[in-house]
């Protein structure tokens, strides 16, 4: 089910919230959790019920692994580690099969004389997100940071619908205490206001901004067209803004919906296009994924505790894994590799105390991000090279793209650079007629665009 659908906004969400609130008000807290977990599974199954068993198997497998690790606390370390490794393998195999099997086979077919048949595998929605959430949980249990004995609580932690499909990637320790808090069982007017605001802003970003930028981005990336220099820049910038408004819009809706239940999900974006270097960008873009890679890949690899070359190697490996997490393809890997290199350069510049003028730093960073998004979005190297070369080909002049695209791109810059982001504004939202009116207007405006609804970009990752 999409957040930007009538069925979610007018039926699923109000009903889920209403029943949850009534059950909590009647002090039936277990029942309220059962209801929320069931509703979340229904939300997941709405897309394709055939994948419900998959998520349930994943939950059961990880829960059993976590329980086994918790039981082995007083036993020899080897057993505990072995169980963790088995658990991680279980998750990675599941992810590997659904996401990377065909990529692996088609590459094998390219190098081997014998040909293996490619299986018809449909990528289950949100598998990367719920698998990473559970990997983090298993490692946290192993480290003694997290503990959970209730299957119901664990199911709710994994399936809670606002974060299930496309994150944020959450930690058990930041979620379950909120579900346990008695205070959070009561309706909180301030949270409902803040949640409504965030949800409406997210809807606006997705339906009005991202889906409009999509038209010009698709023109360049899907069409078999020869772009002029201006068109190529319009296409690349359109995708840069589409991706941001799409994914941050989704996250705003997730955070907003969650606030109705008095659950604060971690922020995922902090004005990433204001970043002054690539390191800074990754502290602002998809923050929970960056956190995951830092805590569960980069630091276990040794982080920056060893030699400088080793720490650069660790950065590069982390970014390449980050690239391939986004999809099974060489271009994703290349994109990750380029960001890894840029990150290394940025760190190296800092060790040499090289400081650029703020505008120059922003200009270089933004353009690097914009150019690498072209590689990220392109279906093949040919398309990427076609757009990238057109961006610097002064001989191709003119543009047949609507002038509205230029206005939208200007608006994109103004919104992302000139205004406070939605999380910052949400801090100021208080229950008042002024905010109720503003949220109503924003919601009404977004509703006009509901019929053009499309899926969120990050659903495919």
């Amino acid at each position, binding site marked *: 089910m999409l957040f930007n659908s*009538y069925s979610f906004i007018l039926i699923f969400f109000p009903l889920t919230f209403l029943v949850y609130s009534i059950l909590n008000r009647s002090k039936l807290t277990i029942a309220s959790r059962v209801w929320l977990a069931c509703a979340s599974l229904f939300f997941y199954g709405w897309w394709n019920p055939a994948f419900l068993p998959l998520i349930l198997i994943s939950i059961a497998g990880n829960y059993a692994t976590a329980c086994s690790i918790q039981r082995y606390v007083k036993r020899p370390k080897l057993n505990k580690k072995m169980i963790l490794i088995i658990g991680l393998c279980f998750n990675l195999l599941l992810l590997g099969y659904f996401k990377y099997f065909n990529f692996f086979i088609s590459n094998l077919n390219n190098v081997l004389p014998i040909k293996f048949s490619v299986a018809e595998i449909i990528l289950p929605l949100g598998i990367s997100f719920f698998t990473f959430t559970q990997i983090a949980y298993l490692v946290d249990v192993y480290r003694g940071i997290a503990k959970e004995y209730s299957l119901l609580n664990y199911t709710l932690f994994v399936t809670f619908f606002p974060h299930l499909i496309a994150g944020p990637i959450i930690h058990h320790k930041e979620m379950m205490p909120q579900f346990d808090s008695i205070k959070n069982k*009561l*309706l*909180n*007017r*301030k949270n409902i*206001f803040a949640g*409504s605001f965030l949800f409406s802003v997210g809807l606006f970003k997705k339906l009005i901004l991202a889906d409009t930028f999509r038209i010009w981005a698709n*023109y360049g990336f*899907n*069409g*078999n*067209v020869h772009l002029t220099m201006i068109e190529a820049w319009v296409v690349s910038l359109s995708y840069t803004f589409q991706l941001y408004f799409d994914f941050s819009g989704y996250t705003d809706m997730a955070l907003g919906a969650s606030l109705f239940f008095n659950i604060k999900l971690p922020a995922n974006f902090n004005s990433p296009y204001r970043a002054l270097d690539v390191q800074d960008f990754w502290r602002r873009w998809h923050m929970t994924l960056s956190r995951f890679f830092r805590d569960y890949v980069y630091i276990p690899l040794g982080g920056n505790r060893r030699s400088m070359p080793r720490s650069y190697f660790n950065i590069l490996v982390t970014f390449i894994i980050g690239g391939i997490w986004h999809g099974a393809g060489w271009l994703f890997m290349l994109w990750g590799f380029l960001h890894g290199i840029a990150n290394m350069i940025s760190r190296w510049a800092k060790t040499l105390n090289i400081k650029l003028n703020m505008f120059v730093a922003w200009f270089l960073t933004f353009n690097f991000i914009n150019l690498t998004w072209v590689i990220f979005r392109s279906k093949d190297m040919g398309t990427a090279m076609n757009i990238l070369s057109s961006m610097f080909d002064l001989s191709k002049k003119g543009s047949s793209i609507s002038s509205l695209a230029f206005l939208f791109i200007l608006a994109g810059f103004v919104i992302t650079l000139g205004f406070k982001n939605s999380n910052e504004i949400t801090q100021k939202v*208080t*229950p008042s*007629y002024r905010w*109720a*009116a*503003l*949220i*109503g*207007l924003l*919601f*009404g*405006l977004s*509703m*006009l*665009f*509901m*019929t*053009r609804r499309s899926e969120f970009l990050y659903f495919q990752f």
Partner: protein
Amino acid sequence: MNKKNIAARPDPWIDLKYSLTFCACALLILLPVALINFIYDPGEIYFQRMVKDKYADDYAKMLLSSDVGVKESTNERIVKAHMAQHASPYKTVIFGSSRIMQLSPLHMPNFQNYFPAPALNLGASAWTIEDTLIFTHILLHNDTIPQAIVISVDPWTLRWNLSPSYLILEDHFKGMLDELGIKKTTQKPEHYLIKLLTNSISYNYFVQSLKRLSDPSFNIIPKNDFKDWPQANAADFVNGFDFDQGYDYQLTLKDGARLFSKENVWEMIYDYNQGHVGYIGQQGAYWDDNAVDVFEKLINYVQKKGIKVYFVLLPFSPLVYDGQHTADQDRFLAVEQKIREIASRNNIKVFGTYDAQKSHMQATNFFDFQHPRPSTLRNFDFSH
């Protein structure tokens, strides 16, 4: 009491007032849009339908008796439904989407050589399997039923729920399912009223409504008959009229075919030059097994009534076969195979192929990636 405590204190009355403020502001935007959409109604499904529905039958009769054709008037499905009700004199009827709507039997002798004449094109935009059931139902309740039905089968024809357009005639849809004895399908029944409500606040519909609003020739309350409705000038069509160029306005020819306006032709060619490939059902399964089952039951039922059924597979432009659209290419290939299986099981003749290369088509044979030019349809080979 400080402000923070007031904000947190539960008070149903103040919550109600906040909710009302929220709703009032949301409605402040939605209601004017809904009102304009309701009145100007470019799809002719609200107010315009209410005032025009009673004249649609007159319009259909005038169209059938016109010299060449009449300017497109109201909702095309409603008009086609009325034409279907008057289809008794016609021995062949054509079903299909906008891809075959330009096939004019009267102006294409090649068609008349292979199918019983006269023929009537009942095609409508975004034609789906639901429409096939609807129009079959209408035809089967006429005094005389046709001898042949030519179905232009598109890559999306074997799937349910791809377009809500059929809902305007949903009674016939249900009627046909009843007649076939089908109690349950995997088709998700949609609710026309809900579709009407959501569409009334659609921005895209609003843009079309605004176009009407700014058109000085548009009358909110239409004239109470179609006596003065623009009819195509017969003299234009006497000597070698170039159908590929389009007409001054969108025209429904007297055999039900569509002649695009020059403006529409230009828009399609522009779209084609942009390399755009987009059609209903581009994503998702190739076909629904249950839809295939119902489709075959319908064909068997029709055949038992003595009507001969033919399938036409109109080609897609070479643009789809340029190596950049492999997903679409795979879809077309798989669906074509499925259609040929159905045809062979039910002893149905199939004409054509989706594959531009096999049918030796050039880009110039099409307006855009999916709409063949009238000249292409005129030369379509119905001999094998």
